[in-house]
């Protein structure tokens, strides 16, 4: 499960290394300081330094990741205007016109800060240096969500910059109780990670578990949320995702307000949230933006589509291979006619067509959009028509496979959609080999498997087990808001009331 834990000996060595590196800054001259820094940066070319005030002050930064204008106007020019005789750290800190400024004597922190776009201002023979935030943010404009599109609701997605994402969450939740903790992940990549939760709502156990898992992580480099999520999941030997990824700030905001814990990682346009149940992968924020009747309807459609997507093709295979008596005779005649030309056993026929659909999907995902349109023609017309005419597959199977492919795309979460498409293949094979017994086995196996999974240590197949019929109103269906007075029991929130249900549901008499 936590495979990085096995390599504990390596990790211990690293921690010792870290201790050796912990040099306090101690009354160096500016030249000594530069030498020390150069050594730590392996004499890297992009490390810039500049002496000011007759070698009394040195300014060190990395050119490419800092803003030259900020350095010139807000750091260098105020320092140059100072009186050379009365220099001290206090005077420097007052004169520099930058908001992000701190004083430190930890050399390790100095190095870490310089790599993330801060500049060091060091006054000769002092015990501490001043760190000034002069980073340049390289980011693209905010765009619409690509993978979680909604008709209603805000059309904005996370971007790659951590600070922008933090801002987006703050804009959703203007609440002083929103806690943001900064963590560092990856021995090589040193990626910044922010942990989000709302104090007073989120369960502390969940927050601690999430923080613990990120802190204990000993992996060399983590570049994306999708990367991190695989490292902190409960169980990696499964195809089901156990923590949710979302690119919608409103979704994260909503889930945070319901007591979940969020994680945003620098360089990724996805946020992680948890704990998550299996069923929540079939919900979207849109369910709450449309009226509850519609929300309930689309949720039910999604569940039905998922079940169909998993079991439709296996049912065809088992019926045509072994138990054709379950098909009514009228239908059986039609089926027999279309299948009469097909020379393959049903299992091969089904696997061939399912594989073709997977090919189309994968090719469509890799091709640029302009070429992508041809995929539809090639897939739909050429392969579909020609395969039937050539006697490779039956018409009915094409309909079934197309419906189950569509069904798997209704899962609002890409990871879950993938999982659904993959588990279909073993079930088809079992249906072809063992008929109804094989399909029964796979249903039972999936049930047991889902029961065994957990998300941040909480049951994954909630609310089916532990069975909570009260929670059905916001899982399988979506009741109107006056009925959703309590936060999900699953998150085990400190404060479970969303509003005063009593006041909201006060009944009036007629004509009052």
């Amino acid at each position, binding site marked *: 499960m936590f495979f990085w834990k096995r390599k504990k000996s390596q990790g211990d060595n690293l921690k010792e290394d870290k201790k050796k590196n912990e040099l306090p800054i101690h009354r160096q001259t500016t030249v000594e300081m530069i030498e020390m820094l150069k050594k730590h940066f392996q004499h890297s070319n992009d490390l810039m330094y500049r002496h000011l005030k007759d070698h009394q002050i040195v300014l060190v930064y990395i050119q490419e990741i800092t803003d030259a204008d900020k350095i010139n106007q807000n750091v260098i020019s105020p320092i140059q205007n100072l009186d050379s005789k009365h220099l001290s750290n206090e005077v420097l800190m007052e004169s520099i016109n930058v908001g992000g400024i701190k004083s430190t004597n930890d050399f390790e922190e100095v190095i870490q800060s310089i790599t993330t776009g801060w500049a060091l201002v060091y006054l000769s023979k002092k015990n501490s240096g001043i760190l000034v935030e002069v980073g340049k943010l390289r980011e693209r404009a905010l765009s619409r969500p690509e993978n979680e599109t909604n008709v209603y609701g805000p059309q904005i997605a996370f971007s790659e910059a951590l600070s922008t994402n933090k801002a987006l969450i703050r804009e959703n939740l203007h609440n002083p109780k929103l806690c943001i903790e900064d963590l560092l992940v990856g021995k090589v990549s040193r990626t910044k990670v922010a942990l989000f939760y709302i104090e007073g709502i989120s369960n502390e156990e969940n927050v601690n578990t999430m923080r613990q898992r990120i802190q204990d992580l000993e992996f060399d480099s983590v570049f994306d949320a999708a990367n991190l999520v695989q490292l902190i999941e409960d169980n990696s030997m499964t195809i089901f995702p156990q923590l949710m990824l979302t690119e919608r700030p409103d979704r994260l905001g909503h889930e945070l307000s319901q007591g979940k814990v969020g994680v945003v990682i620098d360089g990724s346009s996805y946020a992680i949230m948890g704990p998550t149940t299996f069923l929540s992968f079939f919900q979207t924020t849109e369910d709450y933006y449309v009226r509850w009747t519609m929300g309930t309807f689309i949720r039910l459609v999604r569940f039905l589509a998922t079940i169909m997507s998993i079991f439709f093709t296996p049912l065809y295979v088992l019926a045509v291979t072994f138990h054709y008596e379950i098909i*009514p005779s009228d*239908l059986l005649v039609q089926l027999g006619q279309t299948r009469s030309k097909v020379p393959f056993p049903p299992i091969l026929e089904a696997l061939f067509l399912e594989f073709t659909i997977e090919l189309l999907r994968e090719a469509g995902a890799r091709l640029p959009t302009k070429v992508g349109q041809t995929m539809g023609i090639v897939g739909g017309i050429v392969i579909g028509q020609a395969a039937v005419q050539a006697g490779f597959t039956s018409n009915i199977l094409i309909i079934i496979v197309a419906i189950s492919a569509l069904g798997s795309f209704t899962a609002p979460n890409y990871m879950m959609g993938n999982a659904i498409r993959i588990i279909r293949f073993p079930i088809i094979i079992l249906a072809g080999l063992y008929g109804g017994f094989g399909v*029964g086995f796979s*249903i*039972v196996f999936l049930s047991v498997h889902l*029961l065994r999974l957990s998300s941040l240590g909480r049951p994954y197949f909630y609310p089916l087990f532990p069975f909570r019929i009260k929670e059905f109103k916001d899982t399988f269906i979506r009741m109107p808001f006056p009925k959703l007075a309590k936060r999900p029991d699953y998150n085990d929130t400190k404060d479970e009331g969303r509003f005063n249900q009593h006041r909201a549901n006060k009944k009036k008499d007629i004509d009052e």
Partner: protein
Amino acid sequence: MDINIRPKPYLLFNAFHLIFIIFSIQVGVGLPGFQRIIVMESGHDAWISVIVAGIAAHLVVMVMIATLNRYGSADLYGIHQDIFGKWLGSIINTVFIAYLVLSTTVVFRAYIEIVQVWLFPELPVWSMAIFGGLLAIYAVLGGIRVVVGVSVLSVLFTLWMIFLLYFPIQYAEWKSLLPIFDTSTLDILKGAYKMSFTLAGFEILYYIYPYVKEKEKTSLFTHLGLLATNLLNLIIMVVSLVYFSEGQLLKTIWATLSMFKIIQLPFMERFEIIAISLWMLVILPNAILPLWAATRGMKRVFGFKQKYSLHGIVIIIFIAQMLLKTRDQVNMFFDWFSNKGFYLVFIYPFILYVLVLVVQKMRQKRGLASNETKAPSNKSSN
């Protein structure tokens, strides 16, 4: 071995899950074909036998809960240890472990029999036994929570099959229930006795009781679960009696499945094939709850780790299934098992209750503080 066990809090489950546990462990391989056996004894009054047997089961559960209440949080193994002492207690515990292992064997073997008759006559026993064994190992390795979860899902995913009874009811001949009380009381009681194989399973309460979170609600939810099973048995029995003629029912081995056979929908017929395929989910709790209880017993009595004894027991079950080759052998074994099971499940709880009462009274008289057994020991064991 401690008499009382205090499982860690996260292993406990809410008391209302007992409804699912009791229901799912009672509904199993008995249900598809219990009608013929009862009707053989009590004719068209078989439904009265079902009610009588149901009431008997309620009585037994009352006694079981009364026994368990005399201890704080003990299971059957602990109670035996307390009453019979170390040596005799261990021997009796071994008998009960053997019974649990046999009941798992019976469940798997009966299901294989159904699959062979209805779906795949050629499919060898060993291949299905391997599938079943792997599932059982995978589920029990998840611990008590997964085992209870399987019971819940088993009920939720298969309860819809009750509505399939609507189709045979359309052809019902209600007059075949008349005249009521035509059969002699003795025959009705004989029929009720034959119900014991179908009703057995609730004795699992003896083993899972320490894992119930709200112990004071155990009685309520166990009886509710039992009531649900009894109602289901009664409904199926009545529908079978009005759908089949008595002579026909005597010749139909799996009457419930035969009733599913007639269902015709525009897109699907012969629902018994779907039902048998899904029946694996119905029988899995019947197999893994006793299996789990047996591994607990191996740990409590002999100190084996549950992980290891589980694999050993599953291998034994696998071999036992292979040994039962022909239909006659299977039938003989089931008859033998259900006869012995009757005494262990329906008679023994009364004996145990009396013994517990007597022993505890004697201790009180002898001046031994009774709260030594009653009060929970602070020492916890998982």
